[in-house]
């Protein structure tokens, strides 16, 4: 893939033309290097072309255009992306916690459960918050700035949706594996109980049975309570996720459709701007031709006529 860099030639021409244009060229040296430092820090360190800072300061620019201050909504968008980044790191942690909890251990595993729950809650909270903030980015009116805002919104929405899906997938695989593990353990117990119950017989066995049965019932109760809790969790997370997805789906672009085409978006912007202009013109016209304006002007004229009549009456009487 061949390319050709014309920047050096361009700079050479630019410098020579500048010296021709303004022979008394010394730049304000105080401002020069400061601007250079500011703009070079924004540059990516691994640039392929020669960065600005290697130019000798003597010929540096006077009226350079620095990267200006962005508008306020950029702060909101940056906050959202920071939150998304935090959610991503927490997801990685969650993955590790899941793996740890699934490993067979002696002991309760309750701390692992707690950690998993708290992590999941934090992530869901972050996603929820980001999604609410995303709504703030919407702007009205067809201007260039609003297009930028809309696109930033879309990009963040896509990231959010992706993270939500990932969270759901992680959760469901974890739950599935957990259930498998528990079932294996439960089955084993059930089998043991079953075989021992068959071996015994008669009243003595009845008492023994009832004890076995009691413990069995208690166990199955505990299991069902746990299952209910799990189901409750799943329902909650599904609800939350459905809510997020519904809000996001309006913003996220469907890949492969016409909406994902750059030329379609450019045309659309042009046509919405035109439509907006037409609407404004129409509104202006209706306002001007509005009945209100007519009434008001008629009334004002009548008032004038009355005043004139009044004055004439005074004069002649």
């Amino acid at each position, binding site marked *: 893939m061949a390319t050709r860099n014309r920047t050096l030639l361009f700079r050479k021409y630019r410098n020579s033309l500048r010296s021709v244009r303004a022979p008394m060229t010394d730049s304000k040296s105080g401002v020069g290097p400061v601007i250079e430092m500011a703009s070079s820090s924004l540059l990516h360190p691994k640039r392929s072309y020669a960065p600005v800072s290697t130019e000798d300061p003597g010929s540096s620019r006077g009226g350079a255009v620095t990267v200006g201050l962005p508008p306020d909504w950029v702060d909101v968008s940056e906050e959202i992306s920071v939150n998304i980044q935090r959610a991503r790191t927490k997801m990685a942690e969650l993955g590790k916690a899941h793996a740890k909890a699934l490993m067979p251990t002696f002991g309760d595993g309750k701390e692992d459960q707690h950690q998993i729950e708290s992590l999941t809650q934090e992530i869901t909270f972050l996603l929820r918050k980001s999604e609410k903030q995303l709504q703030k980015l919407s702007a009205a009116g067809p201007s260039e700035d609003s297009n930028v805002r809309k696109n930033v919104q879309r990009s963040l929405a896509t990231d959010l949706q992706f993270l939500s899906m990932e969270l759901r997938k992680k959760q469901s695989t974890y739950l599935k594996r957990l259930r498998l593990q528990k079932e294996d353990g439960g089955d084993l117990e059930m089998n043991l109980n079953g075989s021992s119950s068959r071996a015994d017989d008669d009243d003595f066995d009845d008492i023994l049975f009832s004890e076995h049965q009691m413990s069995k019932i208690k166990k199955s109760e505990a299991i069902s309570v746990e299952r209910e809790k799990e189901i409750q969790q799943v329902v909650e997370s599904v609800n939350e*996720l459905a809510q997020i997805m519904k809000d996001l789906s309006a913003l996220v672009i469907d890949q492969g459709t*016409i909406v994902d085409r750059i*030329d379609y978006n450019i045309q659309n912007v042009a046509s919405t701007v035109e439509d907006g202009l037409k609407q404004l013109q129409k509104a202006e016209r209706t306002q001007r031709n509005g009945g209100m304006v007519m009434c008001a002007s008629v009334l004002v004229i009548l008032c004038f006529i009355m005043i004139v009549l009044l004055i004439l009456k005074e004069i002649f009487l």
Partner: protein
Amino acid sequence: MVLVTSVRDYINRMLHDISGMKVLILDSETVSNVSIVYSQSELLQKEVFLVEMIDSISVSKESMSHLKAVYFVRPTSDNIQKLRYQLANPRFGEHHLFFSNLLKDTQIHILADSDEHEAVQQVQEFYADFVAGDPYHFTLNMPSNHLYMLPAVVDPSGLQRYSDRVVDGIAALFLALKRRPVIRYQRTSDTAKRIAQETAKLMYQHESGLFDFRRTESSPLLLVIDRRDDPVTPLLNQWTYQAMVHELIGLQDNKVDLRAIASLPKDQQEVVLSSEQDAFFKSNMYENFGDIGMNIKRMVDDFQQVAKSNQNIQTVEDMARFVDNYPEYKKMQGNVSKHVTLVTEMSKLVEARKLMLVSQTEQDLACNGGQGAAYEAVTDLLNNESVSDIDRLRLVMLYALRYEKENPVQLMQLFNKLASRSPKYKPGLVQFLLKQAGVEKRTGDLFGNRDLMNIARNMARGLKGVENVYTQHQPLLFQTMESITRGRLRDVDYPFVGDHFQQGRPQEVVIFMVGGTTYEESRSVALQNATNSGIRFILGGTAVLNSKRFLLDLEEAQRIARSGSHMV
């Protein structure tokens, strides 16, 4: 993958090194180059939050200095002027200029002169100057395509511009591939000869340093040929998916605009048919209509099964699964409706225009013999009320191209009948076509009746019978590719430019058709590449033709030729 990948690589490199929020500024040609290979969502991932055209940028006055501007435009004098204006009043924080072709020193000078605020960070040439629709097919989307049919004296400056644009496009392609080819051209075409010579001058003299790439074992071959050597292919009706959509509805930059055809819901009015993004299209784009119908039915059945299972939500797990799979489901639904809509609309058109009947005769005219039977068939169809004007014109043209010299009386009768039946027919158009692309002007053996080998082959094929009457036609390009593969492309017909000769068989061949390519030909190239014969073919043209476009070019050329002859 080659062409699409090279353009994508260029765009990736443009955007990769520049951090922060960016605005991408394109002109009316580069917007096609970029849109066809890069999607809006991918741009958003690269932090490009605004895409504008270079024309409209000048109008607005908003200052957006927190954005960095990435310009990707063609180095035309028009664009340079617009850039001058914008550099004099810079609106953005940084300006990175990327041009899709070679810049002249004077142009750099002009830009440097107007960059008083030193707003420009870099000036680069990234040679993505062609529209890469498919992996092995590109086009230049040129507007005044008809100029190649006219002699140079009619509009010398127009023809010069035309030729320059083609040379630029071809040069950009080879720079993107990092190759310098051996060039051959079709002897009988002046335009092809001119383009081949100017390309050689550019690659071997003016910019020989830039094109001096590492030599591989065998140089690639650039073959410049003329559309008029095969006027039959663009006139035929098509029955394979991609070609058929372009012929009946129209495919522009891989987009289909259905608004003129039928009133459809908003999300189906314009659709995208891209083999890169749509797996179903990729596996069906070269299949014929019957097979497509079956495959679509299968796809619809699969989708209905998924839909039914989605409606059958009973447990909480089902609910969770539904929410998880919803985006995929939505995507599948969109894809299914797109293809169903397309096939439905095309079926309606086939029915209304009686295309099955018309196309059978067309294929017979193109492939089989028998002048008498052909005359009867064409006359019948001319008398048939349901056949549309454009189809009548095509039939007479195909007949005229084939039986130009046989039975001139009957040919004249057909002309008269056509003129009487079609009120909008521009008189003399068929004769103009014969003058441009008649049997004396053609090099190749279009109907397989010059060369003994071809005659024998045709007879054998006739005896064997064909699989599908509607797709029996092979474009002339197929024969050309075979000759190249066998190393038997005749020097007499396709001479070399300059003194660079080819040793042995080339491994990469770029065939450029002045006047435009068709999707039937791009299909032929793709199928040829799939046979892994050791040679990779790439096809390109000044435009992608369907019969409507080809006829329009002919009409336009005829109009100019007539007015020119009046002046003389």
